[in-house]
């Protein structure tokens, strides 16, 4: 049976064993209908022109994990930011792993989507926020909505500055031959509140995994949200990340996406503005090789005056890897004095690597500052010669240059331990020991 049919026929069974109130049932039903009509996206669609899901849809995925799989903390410690204390919401094969997690209800909610969806005390919040900014039209998002049940639920009350970062990690054990998981996260950050979140998806063996994740983030007035996505997965992992961000007046939201691994990775990142003087930051570093594929598909929808957006994506492609950057800035007629900036720099290390870069600016206001820059090139030969002439061998010189290339983005990581971790991953990725911590 094809995956699409399998999912549709599973939907009935899923609805039966899950106890939800009727509004949610309606949301799910219309979502599965949308997916049924549209199916999985194909390369015929403009938005998916450079990314084909065909090959990965052929696996016979289990869409509901059959049993709970336990893993020891020691086995997976390295995937945590264990140097510092964090709130943790951890999942194994799509199921909540309480023994790896550290949730809280003390002054803020860091807990489970399934409880939020099912417990009456959360009903008002769910009614107000759940599926309110996520697309009701995009097929993969609606597929996730239809099956939305588990994930992280984070609610930060007004004026709360969350001291500890929150880690959300989805592990796949590979006990199932092939597994599809559909995490659903909801993050609500109250007025003047501040939170830092790190999200990671990690396979633990080579069996194929398809993750279709949806995250909704609501930043209220003057809220500050820093969101970091670490994608450094095994070759068997496929990730479709759909993130929707709703920003109110004077809020500041940044999303950093570090794409260092996986088979096919697609990041759909969407920012919507509802208020003035909003600041949105989208940054990414992609370093991949072999036949890996990473596609960044971003949208910043400037709908209100006096807002800013800053995009900076750096990509290094080795081997036969392929990268895509499609960055759309949409400035509505009302959005006067918008300041939107987009930069995308790409380095191709070999003849077989490919990048498709497509900046898209649609501007309907007449008093705005919008700029974009896109470069595609190789490593600077003069810089290579400079370093070699100081005795630094070619391989190390290359690594230093690539590190320097990514540095602008690394510098804006606000959690020092995470910054260290990312630079370490980059050094490993580049295969060098430079004799000092970058």
């Amino acid at each position, binding site marked *: 049976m094809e995956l699409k049919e399998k999912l549709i026929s599973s939907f009935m069974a899923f609805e039966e064993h899950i106890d939800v109130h009727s509004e949610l049932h309606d949301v799910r039903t219309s979502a599965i209908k949308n997916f049924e009509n549209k199916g999985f996206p194909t390369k015929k669609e403009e938005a998916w022109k450079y990314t084909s899901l065909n090959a990965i849809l052929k696996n016979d995925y289990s869409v509901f994990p059959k049993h709970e799989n336990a893993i020891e903390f020691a086995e997976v410690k390295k995937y945590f930011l264990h140097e510092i204390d964090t709130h943790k919401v951890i999942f194994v094969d799509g199921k909540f792993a309480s023994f790896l997690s550290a949730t809280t209800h003390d002054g803020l909610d860091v807990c489970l989507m399934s409880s939020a969806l099912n417990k009456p005390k959360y009903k008002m919040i769910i009614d107000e926020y759940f599926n309110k900014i996520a697309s009701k039209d995009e097929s993969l998002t609606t597929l996730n909505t239809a099956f939305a049940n588990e994930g992280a639920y984070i609610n930060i009350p007004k004026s709360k500055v969350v001291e500890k970062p929150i880690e959300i990690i989805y592990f796949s054990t590979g006990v199932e031959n092939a597994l599809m998981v559909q995490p659903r996260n909801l993050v609500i950050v109250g007025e003047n509140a501040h939170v830092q979140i790190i999200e990671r998806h990690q396979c633990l063996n080579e069996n194929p995994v398809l993750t279709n994740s949806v995250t909704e983030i609501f930043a209220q007035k003057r809220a500050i949200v820093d969101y970091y996505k670490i994608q450094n997965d095994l070759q068997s992992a496929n990730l479709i990340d759909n993130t929707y961000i709703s920003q109110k007046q004077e809020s500041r939201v940044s999303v950093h996406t570090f794409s260092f691994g996986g088979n096919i990775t697609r990041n759909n990142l969407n920012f919507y503005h509802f208020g003035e003087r909003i600041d949105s930051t989208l940054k990414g570093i992609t370093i991949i090789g072999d036949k890996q594929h990473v596609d960044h598909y971003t949208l910043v929808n400037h709908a209100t005056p006096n807002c800013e957006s800053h995009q900076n994506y750096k990509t290094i492609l080795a081997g036969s890897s392929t990268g895509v950057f499609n960055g759309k800035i949409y400035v509505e007629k009302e959005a006067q004095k918008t300041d939107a900036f987009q930069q995308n720099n790409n380095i191709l290390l070999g003849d077989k690597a490919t990048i498709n870069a497509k900046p898209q600016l649609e501007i309907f206001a007449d008093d705005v500052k919008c700029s974009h820059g896109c470069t595609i090139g190789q490593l600077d030969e003069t810089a290579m010669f400079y370093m070699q002439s100081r005795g630094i061998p070619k391989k190390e010189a290359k690594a230093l240059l690539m*590190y320097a290339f990514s540095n602008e983005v690394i510098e804006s990581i606000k959690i020092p331990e995470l910054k260290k971790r990312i630079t370490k991953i980059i050094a490993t990725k580049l295969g060098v020991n430079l004799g000092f911590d970058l």
Partner: protein
Amino acid sequence: MLQITNLHASVEDKEILKGINLTVNAGEVHAIMGPNGAGKSTLSSIIAGNENYNVTEGEILLEGEDISELAPEERAHKGVFLSFQYPVEIPGVSVTNFMKTAINESRKANGKEEMPANEMLKLIREKSELLEIDRKFLSRSLNEGFSGGEKKRNEIFQMAMLEPKLAILDETDSGLDIDALRIVANGVNKLKNENNAVLVITHYQRLLDYIIPDFVHVLMDGKIVKSGDASLALELEEKGYDWIKQEQEA
């Protein structure tokens, strides 16, 4: 120290060096002067191993060993240093870390242990004082946002750290104000001894007031057309290069 014989080199089929002969002994300072486009920077790049140029004929011996086939880093490990006319910016890599990597790579290539951290710190302190470099400067990203003078001073600082046998200074005086020029020249003079040699590539005589050369060579159209002592530089400053051209043609 350095012996260049009948060196021909080209880039994209254009011959730039047309038979250079040059011998530099340990303990000597040589200056190479010449008009723009004569091939001065090409010569320094080629000695340091820039792979963009093809050496079509001739040889480059460093202490009797032919280095013309070696990679730039291998030449560096053998003691060649090139101070760049336009030093490259490396964001995110501090001056200190860059030097640590460079020094330890050289030591590794020469079969030595890595330099212990305290020794490294001592060396950095000593050499930064020599070039009147503020310590804060050393934790900044290499050359990023440095002024022209700071870049050049940092080049000589790196030279001081690496203690090369043959230092080539390519237009080190360009972009320097008089104070920076004095500091840079003073640094070079202090590093100079009977076991190393310096090759100064310059367009103007100015730097040679501070770093007194033993020999001055005039490079024109890919060839050394005249050699002399320090007084030749003064003569060039006064009369320009045309008289040599005329002398050549005569």
